[in-house]
C-alpha cells in the first residue's frame, strides 16, 4: 500500500513527522473509530478524525444528519456511518467541551498514527 499523490499532499503535515510518516498515515486510513455522544465535544472529535483521514467513523444518527455534508467536504475519502463495529471507541458526554473532543481525537491519532495500533 502506498499513499496516492493527492493523499501525500493532503496528509503532508503528518507524513513529515518521523513518528508518523507514510506508514502511520496508512494505518490511520485503515482504522475505524466509533464516537459516542451528540454534543459539541463529539462533533469536534469527529472533525479532527475526519481531517486526519481515519478511514471509517461511526457516529450517532443525529450528529451524522447535521454534519455529514460538512465532513464530506472536509475529507471526501472518509466514510462516516451511523452503525457498525470499530477498532476504537471514544465516549463524550453532552457537557464535555470542544477541548475535550480535540483531546480525545488526539489520543486516537497518537495510538494509531504514532504508537502503531491498528
Amino acid at each position, binding site marked *: 500500500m502506498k499513499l496516492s499523490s493527492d493523499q501525500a499532499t493532503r496528509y503532508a503535515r503528518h*507524513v513529515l513527522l518521523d513518528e508518523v510518516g507514510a506508514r502511520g498515515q496508512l494505518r490511520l486510513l485503515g482504522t475505524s473509530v466509533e464516537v459516542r455522544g451528540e454534543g459539541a465535544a463529539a462533533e469536534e472529535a469527529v472533525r479532527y478524525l*475526519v*481531517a486526519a483521514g481515519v478511514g471509517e467513523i461511526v457516529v450517532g444518527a443525529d450528529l451524522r444528519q447535521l454534519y455529514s455534508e460538512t465532513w464530506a467536504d472536509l475529507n471526501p475519502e472518509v466514510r462516516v456511518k451511523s452503525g457498525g463495529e470499530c477498532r476504537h471507541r471514544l465516549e463524550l458526554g453532552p457537557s464535555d467541551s470542544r477541548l475535550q473532543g*480535540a483531546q480525545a481525537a488526539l489520543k486516537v491519532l497518537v495510538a494509531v*498514527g504514532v504508537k502503531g495500533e491498528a
Partner: protein
Amino acid sequence: MTDRSHTRALVVGAGGLGCPVLLGLAEAGVGRIRLVDDDRVELSNLQRQVLYGVSDVGRLKVEASRDRLERRFPDLSLEVEATRLDATNVSRVLDGVDVVIDATDDPQARFTINDQAVAQGVPAVLGGVIRFEGVIMGVQPGKGPCFRCLFEGPPEPGEVMTCAGAGVLGAMAGLVGHLQVQRALGLLGDRPDEAAGYITTVDGLRGTTRDVPVPAREGCTACAQRTASSFHFMTPSTQENSMSVAIKIPTSLRRFVGGNDQIEVAGQNVREALDGLEAAHPGIKAKICDAQGNLRRFINVYADQEDIRFLDNLETPLGEGAELQIVPAIAGG
C-alpha cells in the same frame, strides 16, 4: 451563561489554530470577532484546518471562514480583513478590541502582537503549535509577564521551525486552539489573574499539559514601552554635532564586529548610527538591513528600549549617549 454578546475579540490567523479559536469563541457567545489573515485554503491545510473543505480550496481563508461561521452562528458579527498583520498595521487592527488571540504560524507576528497588545493595554493570548508540542500564554498588559519577558525576540531566519517544514499532528492544533480560547475567556472573566503569568506547554505524545510560571523580566522592551508610553517624547534632532551612540550587538552578529558586544559610533539618527557601524565593520549592515536599506523583517532595533518600528524607523533621532539594541528575531511556529 455569561453574556459576551458585546465582547470584541481579534483573531490573527485563520489556519490550524484559527479554526478552533473561531469556533470556540463563537460558541462561547463572543458577539464580535475581527479576523485577519491573507492566506488561501490549500489541500494540505485540510488535515487540521477543520473549518474548511475541498470546496474552499483556492479561496481566501477569511472568506471561507466567514461563510462557515455566519451559517452556523447567525448572531455573530464577524469583521474580516484579508491582510497580513505586521508592524505597520498592528495598532489599527488592535484598536478597540477586548482581547487578541495570536493564531498565526509566524513567530515575528507573535512578537508584534505581544508588543503592541502590551503597549495598547489589550489582554492577549499567544500560542504556537508544532509536531506534538504546543505553548499557550495569557498576557495582562502592565500586570505580570508578557511573551517577550520569556523570549527576548523571534528566531533568526532559517532557525524558524514551521508546521510546513516539521509537520504537526492535526488534533494538536485543535487542543492548543481550544486552550487559547479557554485562556482568552479567563482574561475576559472575573479572575483574569488566573489566566496570565505563566506559560502552558502541551506534550501531545504523553497527553499532558504543564503550567510554568514566568517571572516578569526587568528590561523587557515590550513591558518598558507600556510603562513609558504615557510620557513618550522625542529627543530633539536639531543639534549639529554628532551624537555618541552605543550599539549593543547580539551574540549571533558578534563575529562580524570582532567579537565585541558593544560598538560606539557617532550618528544623529538610527540610519547614521548603522552607517557608522558599517564603516567600522564593513559587511554588518547587510545583516541588519536588506538591499533597499530597510530593516530586515526578523531584526528588531530598539532605541533606548523602544522598537524603532513604532518610532520613526531608521530616521528615529538619537540623543547623546543613546543606546541602540539590535535584536534578531527567535523561534515559534
